[in-house]
């Protein structure tokens, strides 16, 4: 009884803690003064782009003259533009990365979750690609993919012959870039899954083992359901970033060869910053945003809202 009472009073304190001092005009002004610099920049660089970007999608705009309202014309232009469709197709193809990266990072997280000597080194090492800039990663892999480079050596070892760089071949370029995304992202999702695994704890798994479950049964019936919230977050993050993939492409292929790595966001980029058609670019951006929201929703449904229980 006493412990519950104590806990209750602590909770009351916590609520009061969240409330703070009395509401007075003075205190309100102080509160807003604390937030003012943050809020100004937030509105300017985060809120304003959402609204102004949506507005621009229905205009013709080149910065020099004011935006001119054109209704749905930009969307009609996009619908007739085969380059836009090609970009969209490649962006959707890029979602192939998602299941692969999720499966691999779950596997790696389970591996580094084992209490082995020196495991900390491996966890840290696997994170190195994550903290490296796409500028550097893109360059390194452009070199690695060169005709006589290490990747060709590995392919030859596997009995495959690569003629030239994989990045110069329209058939393989997109997959070569996908591999880099995978290579750079695995450590990131590994850390998230590791946090998820540690939240599950060992007790439940050990209890299942004592009850005679095999490793596979434990994984399917205990570990996987426990990871469901993490799987939702991770697959959501990686699906959205797959649809918006850009930096890898920008550094390694610039959309080529023969448009084989031309993605939707690359289309947006080149319309805006190469052709200065800001309205058209904003319309393409809006479409990508809507697609991301739809895929976010699908993810949410597939993982049943990420509820931990099966």
């Amino acid at each position, binding site marked *: 009884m006493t412990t519950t009472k104590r806990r209750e009073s602590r909770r009351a*304190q916590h609520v009061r803690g969240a409330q*703070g001092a009395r509401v007075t005009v003075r205190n309100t002004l102080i509160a807003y003064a604390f937030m003012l610099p943050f809020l100004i920049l937030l509105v300017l660089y985060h809120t304003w782009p959402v609204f102004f970007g949506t507005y621009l999608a229905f205009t013709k705009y080149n910065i020099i003259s004011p935006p001119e309202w054109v209704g749905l014309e930009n969307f009609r232009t996009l619908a007739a533009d085969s380059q836009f469709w090609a970009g969209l197709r490649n962006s959707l193809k890029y979602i192939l990365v998602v299941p692969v990266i999720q499966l691999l990072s779950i596997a790696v997280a389970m591996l580094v979750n084992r209490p*082995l000597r020196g495991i900390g080194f*491996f966890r840290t090492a696997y994170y190195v690609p994550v903290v490296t800039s796409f*500028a550097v990663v893109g360059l390194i892999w452009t070199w690695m993919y060169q005709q*006589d480079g290490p990747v060709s050596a590995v392919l030859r070892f596997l009995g495959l012959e690569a003629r030239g760089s994989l990045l110069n071949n329209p058939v393989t370029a997109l997959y070569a870039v996908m591999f880099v995304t995978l290579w750079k992202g695995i450590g990131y999702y590994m850390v998230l899954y590791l*946090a998820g695994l540690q939240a599950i704890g060992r007790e439940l798994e050990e209890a299942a083992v004592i009850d005679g479950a095999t490793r596979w049964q434990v994984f399917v019936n205990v570990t996987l359901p426990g990871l469901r919230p993490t799987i939702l977050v991770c697959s959501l993050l990686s699906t959205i970033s797959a649809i918006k993939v850009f930096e890898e492409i920008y550094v390694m292929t610039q959309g080529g060869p023969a448009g084989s790595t031309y993605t939707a966001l690359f289309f947006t980029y080149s319309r805006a910053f190469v052709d200065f058609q800001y309205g058209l670019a904003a319309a393409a951006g809006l479409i990508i945003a809507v697609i991301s929201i739809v895929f976010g929703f699908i993810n949410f449904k597939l993982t049943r809202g990420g509820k931990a229980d099966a």
Partner: protein
Amino acid sequence: MLERAASSQRPAASPTLSEIKARRRRKNLLWNALAYTVLVVIALILLYPFYWTLITSLETTGSIYEAKLLPKDVSLRNYFEVFQGTTVPFWRLIVNSLIICTLGVTLTVTLASLAAYPLAKMRFPGRDLIFYAILVLMVLPNEAGLIVNYITTIKLGLLQQTNPVLDAARQYAAVVLPGVASIVGLFLLRQAYLGVPIELIEAARIDGAKELTIWRRIMLPLALPTIVAFSILEFVAYWNSFLWARIMLPDKELMPLSAGLLELSGTFSTNSRAVMAGAVITVLPILVIFAFGQRYFMKGIEGAVKG
């Protein structure tokens, strides 16, 4: 192994406890050996490209892209070259990156830690509204961000050219400002402040302390682990960012390292090894920061997700 196998062939109806233990130990040993093999293979796949770039950047002869385990010769010639042989001096890029990171991290951390205080520990009208509005912004995709922010930057006059000193200051600001209002940072710091006991704050208020003093003397020290984690995250983010700077900066002299590196690879097509040296120099500070702050860093990431 053989001896142990022989000893376990004792004539016994059921295995004794020690035999079960021995068998389990052997099985464990096998699993561990397998686990280490896989761990090492993954480490090789993830780290070899960095190592390869490092050793290739140290070579001066040989076929450049060849797979190798050791450099043929070791020389710092490519490193001298990358500092000398370009139109934009490499040291200038380093200075730019340092300025951008210092400015960016200081502003981002200060603004988030200021703004999080009322959201965690004060009562005022509109608090919940502001908090939820900020959360919605975090979820909302911001595809037009690049385009509209570019337009905003121009309209704010940050790319105007008047006199060299002012131009530089404005362009640094143009690079840094769009990233300064960090929603994730606000969220992390609010979480950290929520854990600070209200008694401390109330006692200080009764003693007549101003809110700014409470923030500086109580909140900041107690939220220090989160602040350190967040600062490291932000340093890495600012150091690595290149796209925004490349899109926007008219003045190549003011580019940060990552952005300048791509410029280098364009103009330096005859000597990839020098660009590799540049890449090594670009990664090095991040690896050092990461090695020292790894603990905080991971906490920051987990906090950002669990939040």
